[in-house]
């Protein structure tokens, strides 16, 4: 049995354990009394918060239960926010407004006020806006624009097509693609321009890079760029995330450049390095987003993301990296659309992950957390009457935060057309601010919307369906075997086809497209952010200069890299050297000579 099979068993066993605890709470009087005591304790410690209207509310809402069996079901089955199995949240307070004054109910029920002596750290803003366009300096300007009102600088970087495929801007036939849909990065010099003006070693800065196929090379470029600007001592301080999710690329997004096994090996090489040298870095973002965007059902998205995660955990453990070292450095990324499953998809995922990591991998508390970034669904946005996309995104944001996502990106309404323009980006960002800051839905009370009968019903149904998917993958020999068998791919493609068919047949209503369409908005007046030819040309020219300048050194570095790759040793240190003098495409090309190219699956 692979680890995934063991995960299925561990969840089943845990569910049985919860039932046993419920039964025991009802039959074992002492156990029941203790639980009740603990429950009352928890309730007594909940601070009171005040809405601007003066209404007093608890900072944590709990189900109104006083029967030991039900208490057991809640505490063991769901857990408080920040407690195993984390159904209600990875952390205790998530996006609650910080409180300056703590009120609590004394035993006599009177409210007593006291100034907090501890300085409560201001919560980090969960808003992340994915951005990348044209050349490095253009994206840099956008980053400065986006963060000008933010306490923290959390940059999320989109790369252009050639970069995502590990190709240089001067490669044949890619000219028109330079800087389209993301930023063009060819060299370490571009990487320096990209984050210019930001303090990469600072605690308020983090960089997220959405790239997988060539991720180890781009990671090496980032480190090299940071070292050039701040010296070698900056390396352990670097914070951020690089996507580096190979499985989902093969399953859905098609941006794989090496065959699967060497791709996984390069990834593990990088993870081994970063978990040791860069303890604040997330070297992988296990992503369901692209699986969802490629057309999977929500359950498929959650199931493949989780099972991919467990497969990575198995791989890293096999390399000898301790689970409590890599576990806390794993992060997740889900899509959030409008299907009903999204009411609880992330909640259920968080619970399964925690149980699997604890029971199967022996992970400690920090390594059990399913730390989640959510993005609203791009697939749900359409060109026809595109302003409706604002409403779609708003509803999705609501669902994402109901799932207690750790961070979130809201899509711009103009996304079906192009790289989002500033006007619509601003509206998207403000959508989050309105929900989190202006509205009282998420800032006063944790569990504000958790635990409704409907939500619970969805949780149960989704969990069962995810476990079924795990069993199927296990039957196929585990994640890698299933991937090579194209299992996930064909499932996703089927689902995608069904989805399109449903839209076509009108079974799936899309407002403004197959329902209530008036067609007046069919020619949208959206200002497109296209990369001018002159900029594309200048990227090609400066790449040529870089290559000319480093021609001799590049040859040596590539030879050395190839030798280490052949030897099977961790090649990340050689990558770090190579990026100093080689372009992305030069490195990709040389690695492909050694390990081969990815053979597409269709």
């Amino acid at each position: 049995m692979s680890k995934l099979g063991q995960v299925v068993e561990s969840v089943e066993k845990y569910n049985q354990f919860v039932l046993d605890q419920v039964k025991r709470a009802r039959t074992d009087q002492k156990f029941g009394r203790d639980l009740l005591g603990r429950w009352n304790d928890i309730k007594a410690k909940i601070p009171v918060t005040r809405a601007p209207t003066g209404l007093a509310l608890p900072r944590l809402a709990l189900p109104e239960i006083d029967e030991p069996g039900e208490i057991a079901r809640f505490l063991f089955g769901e857990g408080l926010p920040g407690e195993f199995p984390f159904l209600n949240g990875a952390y205790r307070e998530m996006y609650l407004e910080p409180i300056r004054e703590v009120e609590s109910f004394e035993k006599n029920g009177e409210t007593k006020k006291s100034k907090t002596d501890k300085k409560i750290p201001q919560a980090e803003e969960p808003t992340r806006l994915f951005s990348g366009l044209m050349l490095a300096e253009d994206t840099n300007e956008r980053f400065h624009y986006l963060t000008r009102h933010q306490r923290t600088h959390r940059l999320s970087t989109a790369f252009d097509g050639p970069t995502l495929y590990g190709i240089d801007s001067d490669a044949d036939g890619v000219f028109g693609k330079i800087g389209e849909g993301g930023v063009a990065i060819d060299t370490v010099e571009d990487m320096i321009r990209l984050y210019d003006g930001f303090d990469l070693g600072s605690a308020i800065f983090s960089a997220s890079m959405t790239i997988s196929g060539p991720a180890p090379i781009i990671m090496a470029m980032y480190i090299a760029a940071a070292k050039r600007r701040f010296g070698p001592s900056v390396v352990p301080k670097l914070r951020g995330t690089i996507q580096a999710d190979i499985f989902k690329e093969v399953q859905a997004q098609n941006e794989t450049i090496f065959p699967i096994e060497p791709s996984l090996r390069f990834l593990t090489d990088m993870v081994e390095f970063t978990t040791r040298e860069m303890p604040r870095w997330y070297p992988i973002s296990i992503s369901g987003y692209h699986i969802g965007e490629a057309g999977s059902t929500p359950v498929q998205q959650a199931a493949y993301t989780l099972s991919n995660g467990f497969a990575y955990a198995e791989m890293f453990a096999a390399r000898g990296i301790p689970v409590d070292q890599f576990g806390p450095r794993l992060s997740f990324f889900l899509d959030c659309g409008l299907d009903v499953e999204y009411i609880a998809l992330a909640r259920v995922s968080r619970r399964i992950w925690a149980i699997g990591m604890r029971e199967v991998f022996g992970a400690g508390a920090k390594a059990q957390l399913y730390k989640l970034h959510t993005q609203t669904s791009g697939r749900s946005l359409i060109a026809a009457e595109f302003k409706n996309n604002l409403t779609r995104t708003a509803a999705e944001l609501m669902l994402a935060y109901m799932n207690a996502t750790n961070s979130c990106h809201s899509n711009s309404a103009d996304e079906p057309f192009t790289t989002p323009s500033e006007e619509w980006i601003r509206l998207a960002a403000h959508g989050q601010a309105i929900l989190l800051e202006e509205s009282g839905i998420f800032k006063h009370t944790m569990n504000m919307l958790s635990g409704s009968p409907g939500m619970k019903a969805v949780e149960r149904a989704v969990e069962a369906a995810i476990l079924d998917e795990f069993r199927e993958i296990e039957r196929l020999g585990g994640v890698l075997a299933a991937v090579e068998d194209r299992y996930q791919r064909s499932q996703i493609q089927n689902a995608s086809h069904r989805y399109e068919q449903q839209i076509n047949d009108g079974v799936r209503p899309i407002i403004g497209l197959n329902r209530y369409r008036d067609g007046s908005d069919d020619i949208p007046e959206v200002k497109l952010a296209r990369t001018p030819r002159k900029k594309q040309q200048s990227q090609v020219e400066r790449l040529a200069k870089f290559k000319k300048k480093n021609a001799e050194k590049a040859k040596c570095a590539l030879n050395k890299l190839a030798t280490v790759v052949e030897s099977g040793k961790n090649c990340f240190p050689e990558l770090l050297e190579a990026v100093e003098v080689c372009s992305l495409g030069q490195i990709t090309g040389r690695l492909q000579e050694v390990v081969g190219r990815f053979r597409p699956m269709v």
Partner: protein
Amino acid sequence: MASPIRILTAVPICDGHDSAINTINLEFIRHGIEVVYLGYHRSVGDIVRAAIQEDVRAIGISSYNGGHVEFFAEVVDLLRKKGAADIKVFGGGGGTITHEDAAAMRRKGVDEIFFAGTSLEEMVKFAHQRYGKPRWKRARAKTSDIELARKLTEIEDGYAEIKGKTSKTRPGMSKSSTRVIGFTGPGGAGKTTLIDELVLRFLNKDRQSRVAILSHDPSVIGEGALLGDRATMINSQNDRVFMRSMATRGQAGGLSPATHDCLALLARSGFDYVIIETVGTGQEAMPFQKNGIVDQTVLVMNPDYGSRLQLQKIVMLDLADMVVVNKSDLQRARTAHTEIEQRLDQNRRAQRLIDTVAKRHRDPGVDRLFDLISSNRKSKRGTGRKKS
């Protein structure tokens, strides 16, 4: 009955958005179109080369990653430059292609751009109306590849028009120094990957040699087909490789009614190697005629063939010159090797059994197979077609 419309579909370079094109492919196939699918992340050169070799009526491009105005224009330009302007171009990209872009693209010679919200029905209707009628008199072929591609089309069309037509070509025609190698075996055994890996070795060994591939996918008479082998081939996207995909158009046994004539034509067209790949075949299949054009036959097996008894029923095990157990990294591969070896011993012929892992880069098993094929210049029939 007229031949089905043949259309090539692809996603541009640096673009992996294949969700829309997959849906459209299925819809085209359902409506009688033969779709040669080239896959995603494909360069202008790859697309145009494939379109010319496959002699399709049109190229459908699905682009979601920007740069479409340039990309489509480059495809149209290259088609013109290569003398293949009668291959038309259409496509779409959801909302990423604006009406202004589309106007610019049409000006540059693109037939049609579909916008977000276009129904699948409309696209199918468009394809039938615009590309359904036979091509009028075509200009003289500018290159030998175009000429060859058109002749293959004529042969195929000829068989479509006259039902039950039999091959005119006599077996055993002279065919210079070309070696013809037939690959067959059950679906999913990895024939296409294996061929693509062999092609890489052919190309590397001799910097001049040219290879032709005739590949087959199943279809029913009068209906569409997905011809998808090209999409998984990475080494065969090369000017030195001429590949043609054929649908079986209702013929059982793994080949098309037109295969024999097409193969005969390829065999006398100056290639060093002609590779023919059947569809995934059943146990009873014996697709290559004895004393036919094929010099060597390779049966590619998957280790998961079932029980040992099943081996007795596989006719090709008697006929093949070489038997390959691909995916020999699978657990069952050793058992498979032993059982097949015993089965071949019964035949008392010098059949070769080779284990490969075709998906692996530089697989030594594939190297061995390549050595056998490329060094074995003597035909099994001893006619000795040594290259001189």
